[in-house]
C-alpha cells in the first residue's frame, strides 16, 4: 500500500484557457506525468509557480487527458479560481499529483454517473475510460438555463447526457437525482460527484444500496498527500483524509449525519 508512489510536484504549463460561461472555464495544462499517470477520480493540486500568494495549491479533478496534456474544469468561487480564469498561455504552474484513490474499477456492468454542476469534472474522465466497455448513463444537474453553454460543452463529450435543472428552465425540471431508478440493481452502481447536500440526498434515497454508491468528496486541503490532516471528514470509522483515503468513498463509509 504505497499511496504516495509517483506523487511529485511537476511543472505544468497552461496551454489553453477556454471560457464556457462567465463563471466556468477549462484549462489545458501541458504535463506529461499527470496526463499519462492518472486514473479516473484522481486529482491534482495546482498552484502558480513562484508565487507566494495564493500560497497553497488547490485541488482539481483531472477531467481528461490527451497526449501530454490534461484538462481541468473549474468554476470561479474565490481567490485562486479568479486568477485561473485569467491565465495566459505559457504561464507556469506546479502540479502535484496524481492524488487520491480515484473511483477504481466498476463492479458491475452499468454505471449511473451523477453530477451536480462542476462535479461532472472527474466523471468526464470516468466516461472517457469506461464508456467503451460498459453502459454509462450520465445525469447532470444545474441550477438554471444560465448553465446552458456548460451543459452543451459536456454534451459534446457525452452525447447521451441527461440534463436537469432546479428551476426547469433547462432539460428536465428537478435535481440530477430525479431521473434515477427507484432501486439500484445487482450489477449497477452509482458514481457521483457534486455538492455535499446532493450526495447526502443520494445516500438517503438508497438506504439499502449504499455499498453500490461511490461518491467523490471535497475538503479544504493543504498538502494533498496525507500529511497535514487538514482535509478530514467523518466516516463510520472516525476521521479520514479526503486526499489519500478518498476523495472517493463508498457512500456506506461516510457518516452522513455528521457532515454539515
Amino acid at each position, binding site marked *: *500500500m504505497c499511496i504516495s508512489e509517483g506523487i511529485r510536484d511537476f511543472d505544468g504549463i497552461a496551454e489553453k484557457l477556454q471560457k464556457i460561461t462567465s463563471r466556468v472555464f477549462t484549462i489545458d495544462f501541458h504535463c506529461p506525468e499527470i496526463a499519462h499517470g492518472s486514473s479516473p477520480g484522481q486529482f491534482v493540486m495546482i498552484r502558480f509557480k513562484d508565487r507566494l500568494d495564493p500560497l497553497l495549491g488547490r485541488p482539481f479533478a483531472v477531467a481528461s487527458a490527451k497526449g501530454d496534456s490534461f484538462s481541468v474544469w473549474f468554476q470561479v468561487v474565490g481567490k485562486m479560481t479568479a486568477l485561473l480564469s485569467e491565465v495566459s498561455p505559457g504561464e507556469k504552474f506546479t502540479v502535484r499529483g496524481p492524488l487520491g484513490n480515484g473511483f477504481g474499477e466498476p463492479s458491475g456492468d452499468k454505471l449511473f454517473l451523477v453530477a451536480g454542476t462542476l462535479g461532472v469534472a472527474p466523471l468526464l474522465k470516468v466516461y472517457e475510460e469506461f464508456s467503451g466497455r460498459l453502459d454509462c448513463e450520465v445525469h447532470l444537474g444545474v441550477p438554471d438555463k444560465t448553465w446552458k453553454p456548460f451543459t452543451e460543452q459536456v454534451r459534446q463529450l457525452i452525447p447521451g447526457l441527461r440534463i436537469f435543472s432546479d428551476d426547469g428552465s433547462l432539460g428536465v425540471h428537478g435535481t440530477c437525482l430525479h431521473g434515477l431508478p427507484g432501486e439500484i440493481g445487482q450489477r449497477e452502481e452509482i458514481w457521483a460527484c457534486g455538492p455535499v447536500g446532493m450526495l447526502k440526498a443520494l445516500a438517503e434515497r438508497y438506504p439499502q444500496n449504499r455499498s453500490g454508491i461511490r461518491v467523490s468528496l471535497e475538503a479544504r486541503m493543504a498538502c494533498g498527500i496525507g500529511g497535514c490532516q487538514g482535509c478530514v471528514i467523518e466516516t463510520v470509522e472516525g476521521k479520514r483524509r479526503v486526499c489519500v483515503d478518498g476523495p472517493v468513498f463508498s457512500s456506506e463509509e461516510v457518516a452522513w449525519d455528521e457532515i454539515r
Partner: protein
Amino acid sequence: MRSDNLLRVSCGGVELDSPIVVASGVWPFEKDFWQRDSFPGLGGICTKAVTLNRREGNPGTRIWETPAGLLNSIGLQNRGVEHFLERDLPVISEGGIPFIVNVAMENHDETSEVLRRLEDMRNMIPAVELNISCPNVSDGGMAWGRFAETSAQAVSMARKKWKGPLWVKLTPQAEDIAQVARAVEEEGADALVVGNTWLGMAIDIDTARPVFERAFAGLSGPGIFPLALRMVWEVCSAVTIPVIGCGGVTSYRDCLAMLMAGATAVEVGTVMFLDLQSGKSFSSGLEEYLLARGLDGMKDIIGKARQ
C-alpha cells in the same frame, strides 16, 4: 552517508547530512516518504505529534489560507503512542533518514508515559522533539511554553524519562522567549526549535463567525518568516545549545538567513505543501553559495551575521 558533505551538521545529538529538516505535522507516515532517496537534500524529518492516547483532533474547518500564510487548527490528531510504536516506527526507521519524534506535551502523567515508552525503544529513535507549543489544544500544548517556569517543569520531566537527544520546540507566544530558552537549556535540553506557529485568527464574513471552532489557530508560512528570524536571533543571543530555526522558510535564502542568525539547522513545514523537492533545491542553493565563496562548511555560515 556522504562524509564529504559540505552541508553536514551535528545538531543537538543528531548528525544531519543537511541542515534542512521537515517540521512536524506536514509529513505522512506512508513508507515512501521516509526513504532516504525519495526526497534528497533533507537532513531529517520530524514526525507528526504523538500523544499517549489516540486523538481525533479538532472539529470544523482546520485550514485557512491567508496572504502568504496558512492558519491551521488540526489539534494533534494522531493514533496514540501505541500505534506509533507498533505501526509507524518500523516503517520510518527503515528508510535510513534521521527522524525526530515530536511528542506533544499534554499533562505531566500522560506525556511522561509517552516518553517512558519511547525510552524503551531508544536505540531505534534518533531524537525526541518535545512540543510545548501547540496552540490548537485546550489541555496543555502552548500553555506549557508561555512561561519559563512551566517550560522548565515540562523539560525537567522529559529529561528524566527520555535519555536520548532532546529537542524542545518553543512557542512565539512565550511572554519572554529568551527567559524560556534559558530555562529550557538549564533543564538539559540538547537543542531548541524556534519556534512553532504564531497565534492568529480568521473570521468568515459571510457567516460573521470565527472560521475555527477554537477561534484562534496557528499561523505558518512565508508571511511570518521575518518574525521567526528575529526570534531565532534573540534565542541565539540567550543560549549556547544549538537552535533550529523554524517559521516561514521558503527558499535557500531564508535557510541562509536563519543559519547566519545563529541557527544550526532549519525546520521547514508549510513550504513542503508548495514543493516536495524543497529539500533538494534548498541544499543545492546552500551548496552553491558555499562553493561560490570558497567556504568549507556550515561552520563558516552559522552565526555569520552576528560577528
